[in-house]
C-alpha cells in the first residue's frame, strides 16, 4: 500500500533486528545484575527505558503487515505484541515499571524475566529469517512477470 513488498520486508527486518539487539542488551544487563556487576536500580532504570520503544516497534511492524494485507504475518506477530502490551498494562500502580528494583530479587522474578527475554529473542530471530526469506521471494517475484508464475514457460514454445 505504502511500501513495495520488498521495502516492507526490509523495513520489518531492520526493526526486528533492532529489537533482537535490544533484547540481547536486556540479557546482558540482567545477567550483570545476577552477577552483582550493577545494582538493581541501575538495571531497572536501563531496562524500563526501552519498554515503550520496543512496544512501538512491534506495533509498527504489526500495523504495516495489516495494512499490506499480510494476514498470516500479522497473526504471527500479534501474540508477542499483545504480550508486550499486556506486560506494560499490568504494571501495578505503585511499581516503577515492568522491572521494579524493589521486587526483582523476590520470588524468582529475575529468572522469569530472563526466560521471557530469551523467548522473545528466539521469536525475533525466527521472525528475522522469515522476513528475510519473504524479502528474497518478493525480490525474485518482483523481477518476473506474473503470468510466468502461473504457467511455467515451456522450452519448446520458442520453437
Amino acid at each position, binding site marked *: 500500500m505504502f511500501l513495495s513488498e520488498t521495502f516492507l520486508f526490509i523495513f520489518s527486518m531492520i526493526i526486528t533486528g533492532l529489537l533482537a539487539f535490544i533484547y540481547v542488551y536486556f540479557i546482558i544487563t540482567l545477567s550483570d545484575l545476577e552477577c552483582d556487576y550493577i545494582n538493581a536500580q541501575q538495571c531497572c532504570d536501563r531496562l524500563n527505558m526501552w519498554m515503550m520503544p520496543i512496544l512501538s516497534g512491534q506495533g509498527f511492524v504489526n500495523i504495516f503487515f495489516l495494512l499490506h494485507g499480510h494476514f498470516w504475518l500479522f497473526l504471527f506477530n500479534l501474540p508477542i505484541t499483545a504480550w508486550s502490551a499486556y506486560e506494560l498494562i499490568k504494571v501495578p500502580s505503585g511499581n516503577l515499571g515492568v522491572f521494579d528494583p524493589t521486587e526483582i530479587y*523476590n520470588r524468582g522474578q529475575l529468572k522469569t524475566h530472563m526466560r521471557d527475554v530469551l523467548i522473545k529473542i528466539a521469536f525475533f530471530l525466527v521472525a528475522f529469517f522469515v522476513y528475510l526469506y519473504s524479502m528474497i521471494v518478493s525480490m525474485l517475484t518482483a523481477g518476473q512477470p506474473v503470468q510466468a508464475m502461473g504457467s511455467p514457460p515451456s522450452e519448446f514454445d520458442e520453437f
Partner: protein
Amino acid sequence: MPAGNPLFNHHNHEALEQNTMMQPPIVPPQQQPGAGGGMFNSHPQQQPQQPPLPAAYQNHHQPQQPQPQPPVQGGGGVGTTNPFHHQQQHHQPHIPQHLTQPQPPPPATVQHPPPGGITSSANRYPPNPALLQQPQAPPQQPQQYAQQQQQPQSQQGPYLPPQNAAQQQQQPPQRYVISGQPVNPSNLYPTIPTQPLPSPGPTTNNYSQQYQTQPGVGGGGGLPQNSHGHNNQYPAPPQQNPHAYNNGGVGMGVNQVTAGMNNMSVTQQGFNKLWGIDHADLLKTRQVLPPEGVKSPEIRFPHDYMNHVNCSPDLFRCTLTKIPETKTLLQKARLPLGILIHPFKDLTQLPVIQCSQIVRCRSCRTYINPYVYFVDQRRWKCNLCFRVNDLPEEFQYDPVTKTYGDPSRRPEVRSGTIEFLAPADYMVRPPQAAVYLFVLDVTTLAVDTGYLKTLCDVLLEHLDTLPGDSRSQIGFITFDSAVHFYNMNSSLSQPQELVVCDIDDIFIPCPDNLLVNLDESKEVVKHLLTNLPGKYLSSQNEPRSALGAALLAAQKILGPIGGRITVFCASLPSVGPGSLPNRQGDVKTVKDLSTALNPSTDFYKKLALDCSTQYIAVDLFFLNSQYSDVASISCISKFSGGSIQYFPNYHMVENPVQAKLFEQAMVRYVTRKIGFEAVMRVRCSRGMSIHTFHGNLFVRSTDLLSLPNVNPDAGFGMQVSIDESLSDFQTVCFQAALLYTSSKGERRIRVHTLCLPVAGNVNDVIQSADQQAIIGLLAKMAVDRSLSSSLLDAREAFVNAVVDVLSAYATTQNSLPNLALVAPKCLQMLPAYTHSILRSMGFRADLRPRLDDRSQFMNQMKTLPLYQLIQTIYPDLYPLHTIASVPLASVPQSSRSTTPENGEEEEKYPQFPVLHLCSDRIEATGVYLLDQPDSILIYVCRNVSTQFCEDVLGVQGFVALHEMDDLPELETEWSNLIRNFINYLQSNKPYQVPIRIIREDSKERMWFVNSLVEDRGEGSVSYYEFLQQLKNMVK
C-alpha cells in the same frame, strides 16, 4: 543515582566492605600498644580509665538469655493418668449468662485513677540505650573470664571449646515445674493404668461431642462454668498422649484403648515419646498449647559441643531446625524453608571486639565463627564455602592468658553473636553524625488530635538523651498546605519560621541552619518545642496536607549527610506532589481489596529509593482517625528501612488509652538505639540460596540489603531454597552480618551465626519444624500473595500450607486411625495459629476492618520480630486467679527493668500457665490476663473470690470493682507477685503498654471476648470446625 558511589558499583564476590578498600583510610584503626597485635577493647575512647589487664577485653560469656529448654520429656506421664481430664470431660457445657448477656453496669461511679504506674517509665529505660549493649564491664568481670579460661581444656581437639565452659554456659534451666509425675524411665513404656482412678463420671463423652454441643454464639458463647475442673487442670502435664482419655477410660471400656493403640506397638510409642516425636490427634486433643507457652525447638547436633554457641533463637530462627539434604526431600516434607532474623535487638551482653584485621574467608567473605574447622594452628576452613584460609598472626594470641597458639580460645569462635569495631576499610565515608529531622503534620485534623503537645513534651524531656554525640544534628519541618521551615541558628533568640507555599516545586529557603547542631542550638530548639503546640490552633489551620512536598524538602535537607526523617501524619495528602485519592469508596467486594492494598502511586517508592541511596530512612507515625492511605504512604518507609507505627483514632483527651500508648512509643522511639548507614548481608552454606526478602529494606544486589537506618525493633525474613544436594555435609550455616554506624560515630559489624544439622529423611525434617517460625514466614508470604494476587488466594494458600504439612506427616506414618487429624508434637499449634490469622484484621475475608487497619496489619506481619508477631496473632492468656498454686520463677537478668539495689532479694514472679484462647477456658470465678502487643487486659469475672479482690484489686468484691488503668500497689504477697508478673510481661515488650482492668459486665469486655479466637465469631468458623475442614482436606 550517584554513580560514583562505590557502594553501588560493587562486583561479584566483593563484599561492600571490600569495595571501600580503595578509599583512603579515614579513621585510623584503634591500635593500642602492648597487646601483642590483638587488641580487644569495646570502647577505648569512652572508658580510658579501665584497668588495662585482660580487662581490655570484655567478653561476657555468662549467657543470660535462657536457653530454650525442651518441655518435660513426653514419656513422663504416660503410665500415669490425669484425673482432671475426666472431670472436665464430663462437665456438660452450658451457656453462661455472664458472657452472653451483658448486665447493666453497677451504679458505682466509674473513676479513672491517675495513671500512676505506667507513666513512670523514664527509669524503665536507661538514659541511653546505646550503652546497654556495650558491656559496662565491672572490674571483676574480666577476671571471671580469666578464671573460666584457665580451667583445664578438654581433650577433644584444637577447635573444640572447653567442655567445662560449655557446662558453665548452659543456663540453669528455667524449667517449668510441673507438679507431680516425675519423669521416670520406668514410666516411659505406656501400660494400661492400674492405679485407682477417680470416678470417671456418669457417661462417656468424648471431646468431639463436647465441642459440637457447644453453642458458639458471638464470641462469647459457651463458657462452661467448670470452676474446679479447670482450676485443677493446669498443673497437669501438656497433653502429649492422644490416648490419655482412653487411658483413663478403663471404665469406658477397653475397646477404646485398643482402638487407639491397635496400630502402634507399645514399644514404638514409648520410644517416640522418649525422643519427643510423638503426635496427637488434634480433633480429640483439646490441650495442645503447652502450659509454659510455645518455645522454639531445640537444635540438636550430632556433637554436643556445638549446641551452646549457636545464635539465640530470639535473634535468628529457621523454620526447620534440621535442613533437608535435597530439594526433593524438602518438597516431600512440604514445609516452607526460611529464616527469620531480628538482627539489631537490644542485647544486654554482647562480646565486642576490636582488632586490626577482622578474620574473614577470602573467597566468600564469611566472618570467622564458632563452626569453622581449624585445619591446624595456622589455617581454618570456612564452613560456608569450604575454602582453607590462613589465620593472621594476631589470632593466635589469647588476650586472656596472654599466650600464643590456641586459636579456639578467641571470642570470635566462642559466640554465635559478636560485634566488631570495624577498621577504616569498612567505611565509604567518615561515619556520619546522628541526624534527626522531624516532619510534623499541622493540618486541622492533626492539630485537633493534640499529638504535638505529647510529642514536644517527650522530645523536651529526652533532648539530652537522644542517641548521639557532640555532632548530633536536629531539625524540624511542619506542613499543612504549605511547608514551614525553622531556622534555629544558635545566635537567634527564638527560631525563625520560613514558609514555602510553592509546593509543586519545593525549594529550601535557606541553605543551612535548618539542621542545627543540637548542643549549640539547644536553647533555640527548646524554645521551638515549647511554643510549637500553642502556635497551631485548629481554627486557623489548613485542612489540606502537602506531605509529598514536605518529604521532598526533608530529603533535600538531609541529602548530603543522611539520617532519620520522622514523619507524623494524620491526614490524607491532598495537594502537591504525592497527593493521593481517597480509595476507600472503591472497595465494594473482597476482590477489590488487593488493588486498594497496593500503593496508588509510585511517588513514595521512588522517593524511598532515592532516600535509600542517600542513607536517609523515613519513619512514619500514623495518627489518623480517617482514611489516609497507609498502603501508599508506607512505601516511603518500606524501602528506606524505616519503621511504621500506627495509632488509629488517636486523640490526646478522648482516647486516653491510645494517648498513653503513643507517649510510651514516643519515649521508646526517641531513646532507642539507632544504627545509621547500615547494610546487612546474609550468607548461607554452599548449595543453598536466599531468594525472597521480607521486611523494611531494599535489596540492592543479590544478598546485600540496604538499611539506611536500622532500629532494634525491626525484624526480617528470608526465604531459602536448596539448590544442590547437601548430603555431604553434617551441618549448614547461615550468617547475617550487619554493618552500621552507631550513634557515637563508630562503625560496627554485628555478626550472627546460626548452624543447623542436615537431615536425610522426611520424618526427621517434619519433626524438626518450628511452628512459630513457620507461621511467621507464612504470614510474610501471604502478605505478598494478597498484594500480588488477591486476599482470597492468600487465605487459601494458608490453609493449603497447613493441609500440605499434615498430609506429608500422615504419609510418613504408615498406619493411622482413620478419622483422625494427626499432627506431630512440634506442629500442633500450627492449625490454631493459622485459624487465628485467618480471622485477624489483616486476612479476614470481609470488609469489616478498615483499609488502613488492614494495611498496617500487613506491614506488621512483614516487620515485627517473631515474638511480637506471634503475640499479635495469638495473644497469651493467663489465669491470674490460680496464683495460689503456681510455681514461682525469678525474673531473668535481661528483662529486669531496674537494677535491684544491693541486698535486695531477687524478684519472683508466678509462672502462670498459658491458656487456649477459647471461651470454655474461662471460668466464672476467674481473673484472666490477656497479653497483647499493644495492651494488657485484665478480665475479672463475676464470681471472683473476695480474697483475690481484696489482695490484688484493692476492693471489697466484684461489685465494688471499677475499671482501672493499673493494678493498685498493695502490700500483699499476691499483689506483689502479680505486679512482678506484669512487669515481667512489660519487660518483654519494646515499651510499656497500657493496662486495662475490665469487668465481665462492662462494654469493654468485647475487647477481651473478641480475642478469644478459637470460638466461633461472626462470619468465621470456630477452631474445631476449622480442624474438621482440615481433616476433610488432608489426604
